[in-house]
Protein backbone atom coordinates (compact mmCIF):
# COMPACT_ATOMS: atom_id res chain seq x y z
CA UNK A 1 0.00 0.00 0.00
CA UNK A 2 1.33 3.44 -0.83
CA UNK A 3 1.93 5.99 1.88
CA UNK A 4 -0.62 8.33 0.31
CA UNK A 5 -3.36 5.69 0.51
CA UNK A 6 -2.50 4.89 4.11
CA UNK A 7 -2.64 8.61 4.98
CA UNK A 8 -6.06 8.88 3.34
CA UNK A 9 -7.30 5.89 5.34
CA UNK A 10 -6.07 7.57 8.52
CA UNK A 11 -7.95 10.74 7.58
CA UNK A 12 -11.09 8.68 6.87
CA UNK A 13 -10.85 7.25 10.37
CA UNK A 14 -10.43 10.76 11.75
CA UNK A 15 -13.52 11.94 9.89
CA UNK A 16 -15.51 8.92 11.14
CA UNK A 17 -14.50 9.88 14.68
CA UNK A 18 -15.61 13.50 14.08
CA UNK A 19 -18.92 12.16 12.77
CA UNK A 20 -19.25 9.97 15.84
CA UNK A 21 -18.59 12.84 18.22
CA UNK A 22 -21.41 14.87 16.70
CA UNK A 23 -23.87 12.01 16.37
CA UNK A 24 -23.38 9.68 19.30
CA UNK A 25 -24.52 10.47 22.77
CA UNK A 26 -23.35 7.79 25.16
CA UNK A 27 -19.99 7.58 26.79
CA UNK A 28 -18.89 4.35 25.10
CA UNK A 29 -19.42 5.80 21.63
CA UNK A 30 -17.54 8.94 22.57
CA UNK A 31 -14.63 6.90 23.87
CA UNK A 32 -14.66 4.83 20.69
CA UNK A 33 -14.56 8.05 18.66
CA UNK A 34 -11.48 9.04 20.65
CA UNK A 35 -10.03 5.59 19.95
CA UNK A 36 -10.61 6.04 16.23
CA UNK A 37 -8.77 9.34 16.40
CA UNK A 38 -5.94 7.65 18.27
CA UNK A 39 -5.91 4.85 15.71
CA UNK A 40 -5.64 7.45 12.92
CA UNK A 41 -2.68 9.00 14.74
CA UNK A 42 -1.04 5.59 15.22
CA UNK A 43 -1.45 4.81 11.52
CA UNK A 44 0.11 8.16 10.59
CA UNK A 45 3.03 7.62 12.93
CA UNK A 46 3.67 4.12 11.60
CA UNK A 47 3.18 5.21 8.01
CA UNK A 48 5.76 7.96 8.30
CA UNK A 49 8.15 5.76 10.25
CA UNK A 50 8.20 3.22 7.41
CA UNK A 51 8.68 5.79 4.67
CA UNK A 52 11.14 8.06 6.47
CA UNK A 53 14.74 7.08 6.61
CA UNK A 54 15.50 8.57 10.00
CA UNK A 55 13.59 8.97 13.23
CA UNK A 56 11.95 5.55 13.33
CA UNK A 57 13.07 4.87 16.87
CA UNK A 58 11.92 8.29 17.98
CA UNK A 59 8.48 7.76 16.45
CA UNK A 60 8.05 4.47 18.28
CA UNK A 61 9.12 6.06 21.56
CA UNK A 62 6.58 8.83 20.92
CA UNK A 63 3.88 6.24 20.30
CA UNK A 64 4.62 4.28 23.44
CA UNK A 65 4.87 7.28 25.75
CA UNK A 66 1.95 9.10 24.11
CA UNK A 67 -0.41 6.15 24.27
CA UNK A 68 0.53 5.34 27.85
CA UNK A 69 -0.26 8.92 28.83
CA UNK A 70 -3.58 9.04 26.99
CA UNK A 71 -4.74 5.77 28.51
CA UNK A 72 -3.66 6.86 31.98
CA UNK A 73 -5.80 9.99 31.60
CA UNK A 74 -8.75 7.96 30.26
CA UNK A 75 -8.41 5.50 33.13
CA UNK A 76 -8.46 8.27 35.71
CA UNK A 77 -11.58 9.84 34.19
CA UNK A 78 -13.48 6.55 33.98
CA UNK A 79 -12.38 5.60 37.47
CA UNK A 80 -13.90 8.84 38.75
CA UNK A 81 -17.16 8.18 36.93
CA UNK A 82 -17.31 4.59 38.12
CA UNK A 83 -16.33 5.00 41.75
CA UNK A 84 -17.50 8.40 42.90
CA UNK A 85 -20.94 8.56 41.42
CA UNK A 86 -24.16 6.88 42.42
CA UNK A 87 -25.90 4.57 39.98
CA UNK A 88 -28.50 7.12 38.91
CA UNK A 89 -25.84 9.74 38.36
CA UNK A 90 -23.86 7.27 36.28
CA UNK A 91 -26.95 6.84 34.18
CA UNK A 92 -26.99 10.56 33.38
CA UNK A 93 -23.24 10.70 32.90
CA UNK A 94 -23.31 7.83 30.45
CA UNK A 95 -26.22 9.35 28.56
CA UNK A 96 -25.28 12.47 26.68
CA UNK A 97 -21.80 13.49 25.61
CA UNK A 98 -22.59 14.88 22.21
CA UNK A 99 -19.93 17.40 21.22
CA UNK A 100 -22.44 20.05 20.28
CA UNK A 101 -25.82 20.36 21.95
CA UNK A 102 -28.03 23.35 21.56
CA UNK A 103 -29.20 24.05 25.08
CA UNK A 104 -30.66 27.38 26.04
CA UNK A 105 -29.05 27.31 29.48
CA UNK A 106 -25.56 27.20 27.89
CA UNK A 107 -26.17 30.46 26.04
CA UNK A 108 -28.64 32.58 28.02
CA UNK A 109 -29.70 32.92 31.59
CA UNK A 110 -28.97 30.32 34.20
CA UNK A 111 -28.89 26.55 34.30
CA UNK A 112 -31.00 25.19 37.12
CA UNK A 113 -29.16 23.03 39.59
Amino acid at each position, binding site marked *: *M*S*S*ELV*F*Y*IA*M*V*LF*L*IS*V*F*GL*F*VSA*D*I*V*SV*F*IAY*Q*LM*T*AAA*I*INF*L*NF*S*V*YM*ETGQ*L*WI*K*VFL*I*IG*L*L*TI*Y*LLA*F*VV*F*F*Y*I*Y*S*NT*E*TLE*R*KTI*IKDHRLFRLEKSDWWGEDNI
Partner: protein
Amino acid sequence: MSIESQKIIETMQYISFASLVISGIAVFFIPNLKRKIVLLFLLFVSTMMISYVFYSGILIFIVSLSFIFVFALLHLLTVQLSHYGRGSPLLPSDAGPPHSRIITARIINIIIPILLCTGLGYLIYKLIGGYFPADDGVHEIFIIGMEEISGIIFTRYNIIIFLLVAAALISFIWFTVILMTGRKNKGEYNK
Protein backbone atom coordinates in the same frame (compact mmCIF):
# COMPACT_ATOMS: atom_id res chain seq x y z
CA MET B 1 11.47 -10.13 1.64
CA SER B 2 9.77 -12.68 -0.60
CA ILE B 3 6.78 -11.84 -2.78
CA GLU B 4 4.56 -14.17 -0.78
CA SER B 5 5.39 -12.43 2.50
CA GLN B 6 4.72 -9.07 0.91
CA LYS B 7 1.36 -10.30 -0.33
CA ILE B 8 0.47 -11.67 3.09
CA ILE B 9 1.41 -8.41 4.78
CA GLU B 10 -0.54 -6.41 2.22
CA THR B 11 -3.60 -8.64 2.70
CA MET B 12 -3.36 -8.21 6.45
CA GLN B 13 -3.13 -4.45 5.96
CA TYR B 14 -6.32 -4.42 3.88
CA ILE B 15 -8.15 -6.64 6.37
CA SER B 16 -7.15 -4.58 9.40
CA PHE B 17 -7.95 -1.25 7.73
CA ALA B 18 -11.29 -2.57 6.54
CA SER B 19 -12.21 -3.91 9.98
CA LEU B 20 -11.23 -0.58 11.53
CA VAL B 21 -13.38 1.43 9.16
CA ILE B 22 -16.38 -0.92 9.27
CA SER B 23 -16.40 -1.35 13.04
CA GLY B 24 -15.78 2.38 13.45
CA ILE B 25 -18.90 3.24 11.46
CA ALA B 26 -21.03 0.41 12.88
CA VAL B 27 -20.40 1.37 16.49
CA PHE B 28 -22.30 4.66 16.12
CA PHE B 29 -25.43 2.95 14.84
CA ILE B 30 -25.65 0.10 17.31
CA PRO B 31 -27.70 1.02 20.37
CA ASN B 32 -26.65 -1.81 22.67
CA LEU B 33 -23.80 -0.83 24.97
CA LYS B 34 -22.41 -4.34 25.31
CA ARG B 35 -22.12 -4.70 21.54
CA LYS B 36 -20.32 -1.37 21.40
CA ILE B 37 -17.79 -2.73 23.86
CA VAL B 38 -17.28 -5.77 21.63
CA LEU B 39 -16.70 -3.48 18.66
CA LEU B 40 -14.27 -1.43 20.73
CA PHE B 41 -12.28 -4.56 21.36
CA LEU B 42 -12.36 -5.35 17.67
CA LEU B 43 -11.06 -1.84 16.97
CA PHE B 44 -8.24 -2.40 19.39
CA VAL B 45 -7.32 -5.76 17.84
CA SER B 46 -7.33 -4.18 14.37
CA THR B 47 -5.06 -1.38 15.57
CA MET B 48 -2.64 -3.89 17.01
CA MET B 49 -2.71 -5.85 13.74
CA ILE B 50 -1.84 -2.65 11.90
CA SER B 51 1.10 -1.98 14.19
CA TYR B 52 2.25 -5.56 13.52
CA VAL B 53 2.10 -5.22 9.74
CA PHE B 54 3.95 -1.93 9.98
CA TYR B 55 6.83 -3.77 11.64
CA SER B 56 6.09 -2.37 15.12
CA GLY B 57 4.86 -5.44 16.91
CA ILE B 58 6.52 -4.27 20.11
CA LEU B 59 3.71 -1.74 20.50
CA ILE B 60 1.21 -4.56 20.91
CA PHE B 61 2.71 -5.64 24.20
CA ILE B 62 3.35 -2.27 25.79
CA VAL B 63 0.23 -0.43 24.75
CA SER B 64 -2.11 -3.36 25.34
CA LEU B 65 -1.24 -3.41 29.02
CA SER B 66 -2.47 0.12 29.50
CA PHE B 67 -5.45 -0.24 27.19
CA ILE B 68 -6.70 -3.37 28.98
CA PHE B 69 -7.15 -1.43 32.24
CA VAL B 70 -9.27 1.21 30.54
CA PHE B 71 -11.22 -1.41 28.66
CA ALA B 72 -11.90 -3.41 31.81
CA LEU B 73 -13.18 -0.34 33.64
CA LEU B 74 -15.40 0.66 30.74
CA HIS B 75 -16.74 -2.88 30.56
CA LEU B 76 -17.57 -2.83 34.28
CA LEU B 77 -19.35 0.48 33.85
CA THR B 78 -21.33 -0.82 30.89
CA VAL B 79 -22.31 -4.10 32.52
CA GLN B 80 -23.59 -2.26 35.58
CA LEU B 81 -25.65 0.12 33.55
CA SER B 82 -26.68 -2.06 30.63
CA HIS B 83 -30.12 -2.53 32.11
CA TYR B 84 -30.57 1.26 31.96
CA GLY B 85 -29.89 1.29 28.21
CA ARG B 86 -32.37 1.16 25.37
CA GLY B 87 -34.96 -1.54 25.64
CA SER B 88 -35.61 -0.79 29.29
CA PRO B 89 -39.02 0.66 30.08
CA LEU B 90 -39.07 4.43 29.91
CA LEU B 91 -39.31 6.24 33.20
CA PRO B 92 -41.93 9.02 33.33
CA SER B 93 -39.15 11.61 33.33
CA ASP B 94 -37.78 10.06 30.13
CA ALA B 95 -40.97 10.78 28.16
CA GLY B 96 -39.91 13.22 25.45
CA PRO B 97 -41.27 14.91 22.34
CA PRO B 98 -43.46 13.10 19.78
CA HIS B 99 -42.02 10.23 17.72
CA SER B 100 -42.00 12.09 14.36
CA ARG B 101 -40.07 14.99 15.80
CA ILE B 102 -37.50 12.63 17.25
CA ILE B 103 -36.99 10.95 13.87
CA THR B 104 -36.65 14.33 12.10
CA ALA B 105 -34.15 15.51 14.69
CA ARG B 106 -32.18 12.27 14.35
CA ILE B 107 -32.06 12.53 10.57
CA ILE B 108 -30.86 16.12 10.74
CA ASN B 109 -28.42 15.12 13.47
CA ILE B 110 -26.88 12.56 11.12
CA ILE B 111 -27.04 14.48 7.84
CA ILE B 112 -25.28 17.61 9.07
CA PRO B 113 -22.20 15.76 10.40
CA ILE B 114 -22.08 13.69 7.20
CA LEU B 115 -22.06 16.87 5.13
CA LEU B 116 -19.43 18.43 7.40
CA CYS B 117 -17.17 15.38 7.25
CA THR B 118 -17.61 15.04 3.49
CA GLY B 119 -16.62 18.67 3.02
CA LEU B 120 -13.59 18.27 5.28
CA GLY B 121 -12.61 15.09 3.52
CA TYR B 122 -12.81 16.77 0.13
CA LEU B 123 -10.66 19.66 1.35
CA ILE B 124 -8.03 17.28 2.70
CA TYR B 125 -8.03 15.32 -0.56
CA LYS B 126 -7.54 18.47 -2.66
CA LEU B 127 -4.81 19.71 -0.37
CA ILE B 128 -2.80 16.52 -0.06
CA GLY B 129 -3.26 15.26 -3.64
CA GLY B 130 0.13 14.91 -5.29
CA TYR B 131 2.08 15.76 -2.14
CA PHE B 132 3.42 12.28 -1.45
CA PRO B 133 6.18 11.08 -3.78
CA ALA B 134 5.48 8.14 -6.07
CA ASP B 135 5.93 4.95 -4.13
CA ASP B 136 7.10 1.69 -5.70
CA GLY B 137 6.40 -0.25 -2.54
CA VAL B 138 10.03 -1.16 -1.90
CA HIS B 139 11.31 -0.03 1.51
CA GLU B 140 14.09 -0.93 3.81
CA ILE B 141 12.60 -2.58 6.84
CA PHE B 142 13.87 -1.80 10.31
CA ILE B 143 12.41 -3.79 13.14
CA ILE B 144 13.21 -2.10 16.39
CA GLY B 145 13.35 -4.24 19.49
CA MET B 146 12.58 -3.57 23.10
CA GLU B 147 16.24 -3.17 24.06
CA GLU B 148 16.75 -0.26 21.69
CA ILE B 149 13.54 1.42 22.81
CA SER B 150 14.26 0.99 26.51
CA GLY B 151 17.84 2.09 25.93
CA ILE B 152 16.84 5.39 24.44
CA ILE B 153 13.98 5.96 26.88
CA PHE B 154 16.16 5.48 29.94
CA THR B 155 19.07 7.50 28.62
CA ARG B 156 17.49 10.49 26.90
CA TYR B 157 13.90 10.53 28.14
CA ASN B 158 14.43 9.68 31.79
CA ILE B 159 12.67 12.87 32.96
CA ILE B 160 9.56 11.77 31.06
CA ILE B 161 9.65 8.37 32.76
CA PHE B 162 10.04 10.19 36.07
CA LEU B 163 6.94 12.26 35.28
CA LEU B 164 4.92 9.20 34.29
CA VAL B 165 5.91 7.24 37.39
CA ALA B 166 5.16 10.28 39.58
CA ALA B 167 1.78 10.64 37.85
CA ALA B 168 0.98 6.99 38.54
CA LEU B 169 1.94 7.44 42.21
CA ILE B 170 -0.11 10.61 42.55
CA SER B 171 -3.05 8.87 40.86
CA PHE B 172 -2.86 6.22 43.56
CA ILE B 173 -3.11 8.94 46.22
CA TRP B 174 -6.02 10.43 44.30
CA PHE B 175 -7.76 7.03 44.21
CA THR B 176 -7.76 7.03 48.03
CA VAL B 177 -9.31 10.52 48.09
CA ILE B 178 -12.00 9.56 45.59
CA LEU B 179 -12.85 6.28 47.27
CA MET B 180 -13.13 7.92 50.69
CA THR B 181 -15.27 10.72 49.26
CA GLY B 182 -17.44 8.14 47.56
CA ARG B 183 -17.93 6.26 50.80
CA LYS B 184 -18.81 9.48 52.62
CA ASN B 185 -21.33 10.43 49.95
CA LYS B 186 -22.88 6.97 50.00
CA GLY B 187 -23.29 7.37 53.75
CA GLU B 188 -25.19 10.59 53.08
CA TYR B 189 -27.32 8.94 50.44
CA ASN B 190 -28.23 6.08 52.76
CA LYS B 191 -29.54 8.42 55.48
